[in-house]
């Protein structure tokens, strides 16, 4: 699960290499969303979120 952002990012670099701009931006969005989800899972106490 922690590897997900890197997986999305690697695919995004490949699509950037192929000059598929839309796909790259979509995969970058998934990369950042995965990071935010991991922050949510790992650090709810750090962010003082009471779920």
């Amino acid at each position: 699960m922690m590897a997900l952002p890197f997986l999305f990012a690697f695919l995004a670099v490949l699509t950037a290499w192929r000059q598929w701009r839309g796909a790259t931006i979509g995969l970058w969005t998934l990369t950042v969303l995965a990071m935010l989800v991991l922050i949510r899972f790992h650090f709810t106490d750090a962010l003082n979120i009471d779920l």
Partner: protein
Amino acid sequence: MSPALARTLNALGLIAISVVLLAAFAEQFINGELPCPLCLLQRAGFVAAGLGIALNVAIEPRPAHYAMAIVSAIVGAAVSLRQVALHVVPGTGAYGSAFLGFHFYTWAFIVFALIILGCAAMLFFERQFEPELAPRPVRLAGMSLIAVALFAVLALGNGVSTLAECELGLCPDNPTSYMLFDSAPGNGSDSAPAAQ
């Protein structure tokens, strides 16, 4: 600033981000310090920021690409600042070794701040966004090719390394070994202790 010069500067920036990721790998594999979950998220922040810069190199400079880098750097900076805050109180210890007086999470925050400042500075030069008179190169070549290829290898390398360290789940807060190798058949670490 011409689009070609902007593309060259972005390629240099992408190489700089790759050097940061290489330094993290050196710390991991040469000094044997496994990255913590916060450290991995900071690495992911660098990779995500590099994606926007890679688009500037591979296609053409656009404000949206700089925005991608800035947003990613803000997320990464928030994570690194959180780790700085964890250890800022005297007596709370630190994670990992120091480099030139700062720990790696402090350096990460500084580099994220530099990425934000660098992208903001680049946005001042609007001529780079004008349509180019000459057609842009269809294939990457030279320094652009090296920058994007190195960055792609490092993104994949971080994915493989993270998979080895954490498998498919979440990483332990203080990792001491690669979970994938611990659970490999024949390793014996998962077996019950021998009866006395």
